[in-house]
């Protein structure tokens, strides 16, 4: 478990990153927290020619509240996000999800941008960004692009980011007053990647779910917005009938993959269970507010 030889550059500017990415393309890897990348190098699962260390690039750091949105720098560590008062006040979904991301040691190094850029299908942050309708900002020598989360996650570890681009920040709309967020996941051990999970953001008026975004993760090749279930929910009172309709709609929305945790049928079952629990919790939260 020793990494093969590679070159290493500690980037001093974004321009240098762009230049190196242009030069090396797929042979380069950006090194953020290294919590996912370094194990794959040591296991010789990937053999990049060069690592571009972005850890000194201050412009990629920090969390700030702007006009109706929160900017999370790609280099914001999981631990910073977890402790951020801005996140706690404006993005409760992310605050609720963060304790599920790995363990303290990993959160101290791992970055928000790394997690989103890697697009692990069982990762929490991609699901949250999608549920909240966030925007991913990527940049390269060819310029800067803003990509809606809906268009960003393309498949297993596959995103709309081009090999010559770097993810610089994520912008997530502040959760509006009158909305609620529920984050649920099932993992056999605390800190493991989930075996099923749901990020739910909803506007609930009285007993009626005005609209809701349901993003399922850990069961498919990417975080999945369950459009059928969302349609079955929109404008409905949360009752047994709605519950059945929403859970029923998941059959078409989801196409779970069998993995070592269990078969597709189990994954679908668990996502259904989480759906009921999440909406029960959302309605209860709205009532309490």
């Amino acid at each position, binding site marked *: 478990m020793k990494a*093969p030889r590679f070159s290493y550059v500690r980037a001093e500017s974004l321009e240098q990153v762009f230049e190196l990415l242009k030069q090396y393309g797929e042979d380069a890897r950006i090194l953020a927290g290294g919590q996912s990348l370094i194990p794959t190098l040591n*296991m010789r699962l990937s053999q990049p020619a060069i690592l571009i260390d972005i850890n000194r690039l201050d412009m990629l750091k920090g969390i700030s509240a702007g006009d109706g949105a929160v900017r999370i720098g790609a280099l914001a560590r999981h631990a910073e996000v977890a402790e951020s008062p801005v996140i706690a006040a404006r993005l409760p979904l992310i605050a609720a999800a963060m304790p599920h991301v790995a363990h303290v040691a990993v959160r101290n190094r791992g970055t928000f941008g790394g997690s989103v850029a890697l697009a692990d299908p069982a990762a929490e942050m991609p699901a949250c960004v999608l549920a909240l309708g966030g925007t991913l900002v990527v940049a390269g020598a060819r310029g800067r692009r803003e990509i809606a989360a809906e268009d960003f996650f393309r498949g297993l570890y596959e995103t709309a980011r081009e090999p010559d681009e770097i993810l610089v920040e994520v912008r997530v709309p502040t959760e509006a007053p009158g909305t609620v967020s529920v984050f649920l996941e099932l993992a*056999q051990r605390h800190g*493991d990647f989930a075996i099923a999970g749901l990020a739910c953001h909803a506007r609930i008026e009285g007993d009626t779910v005005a609209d809701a975004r349901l993003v399922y993760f850990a069961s498919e090749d990417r975080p999945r917005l369950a459009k059928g279930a969302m349609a079955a929910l929109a404008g409905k009172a949360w009752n047994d009938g709605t519950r059945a309709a929403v859970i029923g709609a998941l059959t078409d929305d989801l196409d779970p993959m069998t993995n070592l945790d*269990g078969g597709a049928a189990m994954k679908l079952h668990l996502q259904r269970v989480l759906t009921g629990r999440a909406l029960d919790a959302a309605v209860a939260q709205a009532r309490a507010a």
Partner: protein
Amino acid sequence: MATKEDLIRLERPNSYIGRNLTRSRARRAVAGRGQYTDDVLMPRTAHAAFVRSPYAKARIMRIDTAAAKEQPGVLLVMTGAELAERCTEPWVGTLTCFDGMKSAPQYPMAVDLAVWHGEPVVMVVAETRAEAEDACELVEIEWEPLPPVAEKETALRPGGPVVHPAIADNLAFRKTIDTGKVDEAFANADIVIEETFEFGRHTAVSLEPRALLADYDKGTQRLTIWTSSQCPHMIQAVFARTLGVPEHNVRIVAPDVGGSFGLKIHTFGDEVAATAAAMALGRPVKFIADRLESFVSDIHARENRVKGRIALSKEGVIQAVDIDVLSGAGAYSQYPRTSVFEANQILNITAGPYNHKEYRARATVVYMNKVPTSQYRAVGHPIGNSVGEALVDLAAEAVGQDPVEFRRRNVIPDEAFPTTIAAGIKLQDMSHTACIDELMKRMDYDALRAEQAVLRRQGIHRGIGIAAFIKGTAPGPSGYYGIGGAPIASQDACTIKLEPSGGVLCMVGVTDQGQGVDTVMGQIAANALGVSMESIRVISGDTDAVPYGGGTYASRATAIGGEATYQAALALRAEILVLAGVLLQAEPATLDIVDGIVVDAGTETPRIPLSEIGRIGHFQVAELPNDVKPVLSATRRFRLTDDLYIFTNGIHGAYLEVDPDTGFIKLLKHWVVEDCGRVINPMLADEQVRGGCVQGLGGALYEHCIYDDAAQLQNGTLADYRVPMAFEMPDIEVAHVQNPTTISDLGAKGVGESGTGAAPAVVMNAVNDALRPFKARVTCQPMTPEAVLRALGKV
């Protein structure tokens, strides 16, 4: 032999026996001064890495090492065939005590045929491990993949694939225990219950992986191996014989060992290969198994399917038990301890606490193209206990009795021992009833049942589990290894010396893997001798320093090594008192040793300190009469005589919650009451039980080596192979019933595996207790969420 006075000293309230002392090695580990094998640095050390078979079964058509040899830093590339030439003869992992057992001859690395995914095939030795790994990627092997034996259920099917042409039926071993009238008992029984259980493969996952540093001195022709081992003398014998070096020229040093759990009592081909490389190169060679190769080369264990039946009278008396075990071994029987112990132990101990007279237990062990299996903590017991205790729970339910009450009526009562159980094993000094009583108190059982009932009405599904067990510890010489032909000592020994300063050196054959063996040996010696712990240094894990012994496995260190230490210390004490008697002109019997000072027995008036005895005995011998020849050293050995093991017993309780919608299990509380005889160090004994429980809980809930149809291991990383972690573990309350064994003077039985042996059983029973309202039952381990949901019919 201990005298009555010696035994009284064991019981003294302020004695070292029964006292909580921290492990000496823990202090050094937390100071950052642990010395594990990888911390041992030798100048000019080279590093080995291995090319391993990517296939479960494949013929090696051609190996081209030319490119690898040209890589920077590469010193040696050796194929399996080249290594075989350096070995005296292949290993055959059989023991003569297992009648009819077969195993194919095995070389340390694959020669023509690779038979498991992960088998070492080519070794590369380079200046650094990274360079060795780089070169491994350039070794070209042309393979002819062959259909593997991937499942134990089909391994015996005629015409199917075979692991080794030499063993055409894939059958390793069959054994039956039969009391004779089992069929009759089942035919006459009022109630018969039957169930089939499936147990997945696990592996030990020690924190420190297997590790070895070998150095061959061509001048003196001495081979020194530092290795993370539980049994240095066995490693000495096997490596010496395999590599053709005289045994007495081989020194094995086991420095700090970071966990072992049975993993480190075996011989592994990659370690022999690295040692052969050191001999070939004339340079020290280090091999530290990384986590990925550990998963495909460390022994695996536990893969068994067991069909069980239990016959009852309508009053709820167990009439007979019948089990049929299909045990899935790997590609070879692991040398030199074999891969059939797991099955053998299942037969020995299943339903062992109970009073039935009729018992039939059959085992069939088959080879598969998987990692070889062998002994891992509590060998066979997690399976035998899970099966036996699940059947007992089903039986209690069938006759409408509380599972505790049912057990109370069916266990062999304490006063009936010694007796021979249905499996044909003589047991003594057992305390089932006392353990049940103590457990009930600690669990507050009736209150727990009441709480369970209340919560059930609220839709919260909690389960209470009970599992009694017997555990074979400290094996005797008539059982398996020595008598079966393996170079493994069933005795153990201690040499103890009084130094001129009055300090005491205590050299023991048993070894310390982090459980505190050194400290416990020190406590025993200090008590027997009458000195302080501070004046004793225990030396273990070095074949150049310690008397020949078996090492630490099968919960034998304290039970066997401890007794040897006790007797050696008593012998040294006797000599000291004789010398003191000469010097003081007193009868030795009127003297005693307290706190390192010879005193008048009874009044404890100080007479002469041991430092004086040491000084005179070594330097001023002229002060002694000519016919007094002080040795100030004693060696004693201890072994069992006719007994198979020193058996222990105990009972676990578990409380947990099952989420019937998700299949998730939350452990709430765990209790263990066990009888390890005299407890030397309660804190360390408790920690052994707790740590053991956690391993058992891991096996019950998480751990599983998952193979696909092509016999490829699917989850060989710590991300995918889930070991238990602190967050999910319950509080584990431990209590001891102390019923000293009559087999030794010290009275200690083994304790290291009592947690592991029954924890899976009690959790399975508790899960099924929680699922009772759903009429669902989980019969496989690990009990994953999917397994629970399947049992509930939800997926």
